[in-house]
């Protein structure tokens, strides 16, 4: 008897082929939406198809997407961090303080990333050590981190960042390809590999699907979550560097409301808000969709509030559609 006889070759483990599944996946639907928006935009405004315009448009999402990658992993693992925009404020303020003390660009970068890590660690410890729900912890730290910025800065501002610091938010690597866009693209690859190709990535899914089962399978759940909070903090620190560099100044109101746009991006990307599923390609496409929508509507001078309504409808549609689809198929 050969080995092959034992394998249930005649019974497929899946009813659809991988190609069919890929075509029906959330990411493909989103990609169609993105391409649709791109085409509509090119018809709607004569200014849309211009290399520099499109390059400017990427700034609408690059910083948010940097955080969204880490946030995606965190949400897949069943947690959330609503303090990211406040971490930006605190990290930017810390960089401003370092600047006053005479720090150069390398130190500023370290201070930004370090502050982000510390904030992430603070969230992580509260959640993993004390077993507090992350949504409550991070709503608290959302006020705490930004509050510290307000105490330090009041209604003042830090300005006068060194010229080479402007490279992060205003620099271009090649022609219209901005530094921020390159960072975004590199992070997309790194996070894609981490989530989809490593043991750690599998652990993230396991924790999000059933933390207890994961724990009994030998996964150190607390440690996985702690790493994810640290990563989210680090990414917020990185976003703070880019945003501060782009604005050339720090005010305590920097990045206000960004946490909701980050979460919107993640959920639009097909990550289950309850945890357990989602993908990085989805988040990447969602970043483009949000960037294209806001920029396209901006070119038509559609008021911001209409844009918000549109993003809101998009989000509700995106969450409702798969469920409606499932219902229709059962009926």
């Amino acid at each position, binding site marked *: 008897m050969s080995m092959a006889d034992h394998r249930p070759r005649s019974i497929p483990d899946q009813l659809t082929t991988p190609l069919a599944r890929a075509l029906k996946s959330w990411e493909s639907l989103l990609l169609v*939406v993105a391409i*649709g*928006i791109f085409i*509509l935009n090119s018809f*709607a*405004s004569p*200014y*849309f198809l*211009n290399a*520099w*315009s499109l390059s*400017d*448009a990427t*700034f*609408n999402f690059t910083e948010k997407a940097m955080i969204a990658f880490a946030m995606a992993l965190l949400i897949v693992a069943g947690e959330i961090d609503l303090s990211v925009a406040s971490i930006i404020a605190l990290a930017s303020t810390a960089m401003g303080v370092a600047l006053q003390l005479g720090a150069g660009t390398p130190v500023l970068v370290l201070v930004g990333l370090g502050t982000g890590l510390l904030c992430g660690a603070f969230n992580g410890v509260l959640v993993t050590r004390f077993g507090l729900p992350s949504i409550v912890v991070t709503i608290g730290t959302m006020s705490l981190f930004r509050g510290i910025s307000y105490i330090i800065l009041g209604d003042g*501002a830090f*300005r006068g960042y060194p010229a080479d610091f*402007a490279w992060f*938010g*205003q620099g271009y690597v090649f022609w219209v390809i901005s530094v921020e866009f390159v960072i975004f693209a590199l992070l997309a690859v790194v996070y894609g590999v981490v989530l989809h190709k490593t043991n750690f990535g599998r652990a993230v899914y396991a924790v999000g699907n059933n933390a207890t089962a994961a724990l009994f399978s030998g996964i150190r759940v607390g440690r996985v979550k702690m790493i994810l909070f640290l990563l989210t903090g680090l990414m917020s620190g990185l976003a703070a560097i880019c*945003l501060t560099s*782009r*604005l*050339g*100044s720090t*005010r305590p*109101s*920097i*990045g*206000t*409301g*960004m946490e909701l746009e980050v979460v919107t991006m993640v959920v639009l990307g097909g990550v289950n808000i309850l945890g357990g599923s989602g993908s990085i390609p989805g988040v990447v496409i969602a970043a483009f969709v949000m960037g294209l929508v*806001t*920029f396209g*509507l*901006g*070119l*038509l*001078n*559609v*008021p*911001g*509030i*209409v*844009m*918000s309504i*549109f993003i809101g*409808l*998009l989000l509700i*549609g*995106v969450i409702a*559609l798969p469920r409606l689809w499932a219902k229709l198929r059962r009926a």
Partner: protein
Amino acid sequence: MKLTKLLTTVAVASGLFAGAASADDMRIAVVVKALGIGFFEAAAKGAEEAAAELGDVEIIYTGPTDTTAEGQIEVINSLIAQNVDAIAVSANDTDALVPTLKKAMQRGIKVISWDSGVAEEGRMMHLNPSSNPLIGNMIIKLAADHLPEGGEVAVLSATTTSTNQNIWIEEMNKVMGNYPGIEVVATVYGDDLADKSYREATGLMQSYPDLDAIIAPTSVGIVAAAQAVVDAGKVGQVNVTGLGLPSEMAGAVESGASQSFAIWNPIDLGYSATMIAYHLAKGDATAEPGATISMGRMGEVTLDDTTSGAMADPFVYDSSNIDDFKDIF
């Protein structure tokens, strides 16, 4: 699919927004701190008035949903992409808009700020609604106009360290010689708190029974003082004036506690900013220290060393026009 249908609907709807544009017109973007604020809606009205007067101008009135610098940068980026002729912005942040506005100027767009300014390197000129000397003169003139025989006036300011108020009071003292018979008997501080301002105003009326007017160059103080005058039964004896918002002062004007007060007129401000942007984009005016630029019916603005200029005297509001403005801001 539902989503695509939605997208098409929005795209078509937004296409209609853009439909009014005509290709040859000069496009001037009026960027405000946030949409949906009465003050800025009024400024947009002024901008449209200027456009109608000029004829070949299209106004793009826009701004973010919240008063954030990031939101304004997104808006300005899309205006740069549209290659508008000029951007007139009331900034949410003096510094944060500078890199983006510099980029706009590099691409040939004329950039000015108005109302809330941008740091010097991020704009070609800044239009202040008024100037400190003009305000200082206006607040005492408002009181003196209703006291032809002279009289006693007192100042109810914000805090002892409020920069703006202190400068205005200083400027007021400089021109006191032009108003003979008017005597400032006291200056008190209500700390921009309604209850403290109210107590200070009441105290003034008790200490100086012959007091004829209270000048409050602060929007909190002026409302509290008017209330104190009404409560003390001194309407008609003590006139409350100074700087206030029409929406908050409508009651005081109606009751007679305040004969008149002043503040900038947002319609004039939007009108003047548009006029200046037009002349800069047209190339028949330059923004440099000492230059004068025409503002249509508002006269001319002269630029100082920081290339900023003052539009006009604060606008006087009284019973004749308060109803038109109380719903605006």
